């Protein structure tokens, strides 16, 4: 049984490639984040994070600090 609890999904307002560059360096340099991606094609601008250390609240704080909205998308 594969556990996928370390994949976190958020709805954001990171709408454009330009917005993405604002958070890119900051997310890539965070040692607790193994993988991140934003789907700018989607209406919810979904941010996908792979992290075994951070929880949803921690991620939301980080993204809010950068001036973007961020809320967890629940299944």
């Amino acid at each position, binding site marked *: *049984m*594969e*556990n*996928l*609890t370390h*994949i976190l*999904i958020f709805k954001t307002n990171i709408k454009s490639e330009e917005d993405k560059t604002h958070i890119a360096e900051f997310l890539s340099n965070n040692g607790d984040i193994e993988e991140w*991606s934003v*789907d700018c*094609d*989607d*209406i*919810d601008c*979904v941010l*996908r994070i792979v992290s075994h250390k951070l929880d949803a609240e921690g991620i939301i704080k980080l993204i809010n600090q950068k001036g973007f909205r961020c809320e967890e*998308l*629940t*299944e």
Partner: protein
Amino acid sequence: MNIHLYLYPKMRIRDENKEATIREKALEMIVKEGFDGLSMHKLAKAAGVSPATIYIYFKNREDMVQQLFKAAQEAFARTALRNFDPNASLEDGLWVQWKNRLRYIEENPFYFKFYEQFTNSHLINHKSVDMSEFKENMMLFVKNAIKRGELTRMEPEIFWSVAYGSFYSLVKFHLQEKKMMSETFKLTDAKLKQTLSMVVKALKPETK
């Protein structure tokens, strides 16, 4: 109810059934409506899951297409190698290949159409798919046939066109993707055999 969920209410376990449903619906949507017709929200509705569930398995549409392509290629290679002996004669080996490939297309009609749609797409990174076992088997088969004098030495593209081009044309008539004289062409073993014997003759070196 999964015991783990009692212990850790926030735990998420890979759900292979959901994943398979998402893949199937995504294939259908892409084949019918094209890449631009695919949206994660529409797909979530069609598959009866939430958008969040889709994003657990796929990062975005490109990632999804890439993963589907990989799955299509792997399924193709698995089916093509079933009961295939690279030491078989040219005629026997091609017969197994034709039958296997026809089975693959009939079992996975969406995969076949999807492959045709995306094989030349910039979205596909062909290097991410390991086809080495399949390719090694095919090369060995050709080498053996040349050694035995059943096959003329020729460029791979020419070999493929003669050995498989006619077969794939017949498949398209069979699937009614192409029309000729008859409205309802059906591919039978007898028709395949008839074509194969002509192909084998065409590939044989000329006797001096």
